[in-house]
């Protein structure tokens, strides 16, 4: 056990701290209308989000291991530096890089499986925040059983002609592009009949309808495709290989939904709230029932933080057996965050039900919003029940459910 990072990393941390000090009050000239970036401060230097993204890349604080020719920093991948960057940005509340499915999922997919032309065309503008992507995977009849998707792609001449419907498509209304799973080989077995296509969202025949969720925000959309024509070359991997291409990045999404450090920040925020808010004249934290519930959750989050260190170490020191350890992250991370946000509502009681712009709202209503939002994350990206199947079948080697004929 050695939890020190070494002198090289201490220097890196210092350099990063002075960078964060310079930019933490940064404010964006393109306002808060970008759903993929943090909101920024009020004073400090002014710039657009794309300019900020470029500064981060130049310094190696973002897209660190993406080659220079594709718009990245071109450095060695360094897991510890990535962790230090995330920690220092979070500690100093410096606005981070833009995220989203293009950066988190498409870029790694293209780096691994894209053609040279695709890498040249898409990676740089995506990293710079100039090209936003949405993910066209789920359909009304293909949720947990994603591979049964039916949106059809037919090669006519040198064009794909796409017809069908996608659902749960976050950020479709802001996106220039969509990476999409489409059934192109109707006669092949279900997993072998899918291709991974790149669809410009301004192509005629695409209709986007916002889907309002329980938070009353339109976080998702339905996307309808009617005779949408795109070039035949807009495919990643070969025809019928789309399932494998998509799976290369799904694991990535699952792991990053609920990082324990972020959950611990919320635990600390809740503890502060419980010292300020009173019930019968006594701070909430002095009521033993609520205090014990907070401590129970703190213990769970500490366990997840320690676990994250173990997984980090396994990345640095290959050979450690953390197969099940990785599989449990999505399930345990999202469930715990939901539980924590729910505790905050419970300790506030009636005040915990206030929402939107109500008088007496605490912490901008984030507890109530995130409580509901995380129920969405528990369901999305593979429900908790699907995660348990994965843990049991792939992790513990338990037998699969017998297949129903024709499914």
């Amino acid at each position, binding site marked *: *056990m*050695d*939890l*020190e*990072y*070494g002198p090289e990393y201490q220097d890196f941390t210092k350099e990063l701290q002075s960078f964060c000090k310079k930019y933490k009050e940064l404010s964006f000239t393109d306002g808060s209308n970008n759903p993929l970036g943090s909101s920024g401060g009020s004073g400090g230097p002014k710039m657009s989000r794309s300019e900020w993204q470029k500064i981060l890349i130049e310094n190696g604080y973002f897209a660190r291991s993406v080659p220079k020719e594709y718009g990245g920093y071109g450095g060695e991948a360094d897991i*510890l530096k990535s962790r230090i960057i995330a920690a220092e940005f979070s500690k100093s509340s410096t606005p981070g890089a833009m995220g989203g499915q293009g950066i988190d999922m498409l870029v790694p997919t293209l780096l691994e499986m894209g053609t040279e032309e695709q890498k040249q065309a898409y990676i740089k503008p995506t990293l710079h925040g100039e090209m936003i992507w949405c993910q066209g995977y789920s359909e009304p009849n293909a949720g947990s059983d994603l591979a049964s998707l039916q949106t059809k792609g037919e090669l006519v001449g040198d064009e794909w002609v796409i017809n069908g419907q996608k659902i749960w498509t976050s950020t479709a209304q802001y996106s220039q592009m969509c990476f999409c799973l489409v059934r192109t080989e109707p006669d092949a077995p279900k997993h072998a009949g899918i291709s991974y296509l790149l669809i410009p969202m301004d192509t005629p025949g695409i209709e986007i309808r916002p889907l309002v969720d329980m938070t009353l925000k339109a976080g998702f959309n339905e996307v309808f495709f009617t005779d949408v024509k795109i070039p035949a070359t807009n495919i990643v991997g070969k025809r019928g290989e789309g399932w494998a291409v998509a799976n290369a990045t799904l694991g990535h999404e699952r792991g990053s939904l609920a990082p324990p450090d972020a959950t611990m920040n919320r635990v600390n925020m809740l*503890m502060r709230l419980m010292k300020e808010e009173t019930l019968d004249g006594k701070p909430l934290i002095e009521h*033993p029932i609520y*205090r*014990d519930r*907070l*401590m*129970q959750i*703190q*213990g*769970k989050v*500490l*366990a*997840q933080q*320690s*676990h994250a*260190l*173990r997984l*980090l*170490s*396994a990345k*640095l*020191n290959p050979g*450690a057996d953390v197969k*099940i*350890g990785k599989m*449990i992250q999505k*399930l*345990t991370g999202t469930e715990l965050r939901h539980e924590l946000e729910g505790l905050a509502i419970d300790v506030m009681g009636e005040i915990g039900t206030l929402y939107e712009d109500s008088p007496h709202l605490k912490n901008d209503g984030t507890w109530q919003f995130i409580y509901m939002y995380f129920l969405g994350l528990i369901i999305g990206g593979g429900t908790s*029940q699907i*995660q*348990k*199947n994965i*843990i*049991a*079948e792939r*992790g*513990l*080697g*338990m*037998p*699969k*459910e*017998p297949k129903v004929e024709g499914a």
Partner: protein
Amino acid sequence: MYFGLSEEQSFFQDNVKKYLEEHATIDNIKHITSGDEKNLSAEIHQGLLNLGINGLLIPEEFGGLGLDLLFAAVVSEALGSGVGPTPFIAPYVMAPTAIKHAGSKSQQENYLSKIAANEYRFGVGFSEFIGKRNDAGITFSDNALNGRAMFVLDANDATHLLLADEKGQIFIVDAKSTNIEIVKLTTVDKTRQYSEVICENLEAELLENSLDSENPINQAIDAGRIMLAADSLGASQIMIDKAVDYAKERKQFGRAIGSFQAVKHMCAEMAADLEPCFALVWHAAHCHDHSPAEARLMACHAKAHVSEMSKGIAKKATEVHGGMGFTDLLGLHYWFKRIGLNRQILGSPELVREEAYKTQV
């Protein structure tokens, strides 16, 4: 940066596990717990002494191995896996830790070297400092102890005991004195010993640095709690392994019961609950030696959190076995009961979480 066990730690743990697999078989555990084979337990204890478990935490200058608490934690985990029917936490972890922190130089030299040489074996009774039940409690005056200590760990074959008063001052007493009465308590867990100790004008030696200081006893309690968490960790992992194996074998309705989601989800939940506990226990043990600022908080949370997770696992793993899980035939209940005791000893989860909170104000 490396978060995990060293090769030496894994190797030592494997040796303890192997030894217990061979010698503490379910049949032997049944004999020991039914009281018809008194020598078996002593033989197993001797076998573990031969591996060196008594000297792990004792500094090299006193004849020990001078290892970190993490080393002891991996041994404790192995003892939980094998329901090791042998003293460990009191004589070889809590006593050395208490004497290291509370003893004067000469007390350290005298007692630690004798633990390392296996001349002295200590039982530990600190329960009343953590939470005094009913009329229990020890008082110290005129160099003598009076009163009662409950749930003293490993007192039966001990040569000496460590007892504490309500201020957390620690005393060494002779377990063979005529002014002491040691009453065996029968708990559900018959793989380890718990006693009531009654003192009447019992001559006692104060560990000097515990005079008006709670730090030494807290160090020993932290270490003990981390050991109990590690023991439950090992016991829980075995219960999961057994449940998963059983669910793959046992057939009903023409298929392995493990193919039913009702069953496999219970197994997945157990795995998801336990997996982060490994990291928490290792981390807590590491902080105990290397990160004093977080040490108490981590020890409290390790004890409380692992107790909670293990309780659920003990129940679910038994349920996965159906009726067989409830029988004495499989012996699954030895792990169930071990987890049950680990939960209550040295502070039940609610008490320990309250201490966790107090370290933060």
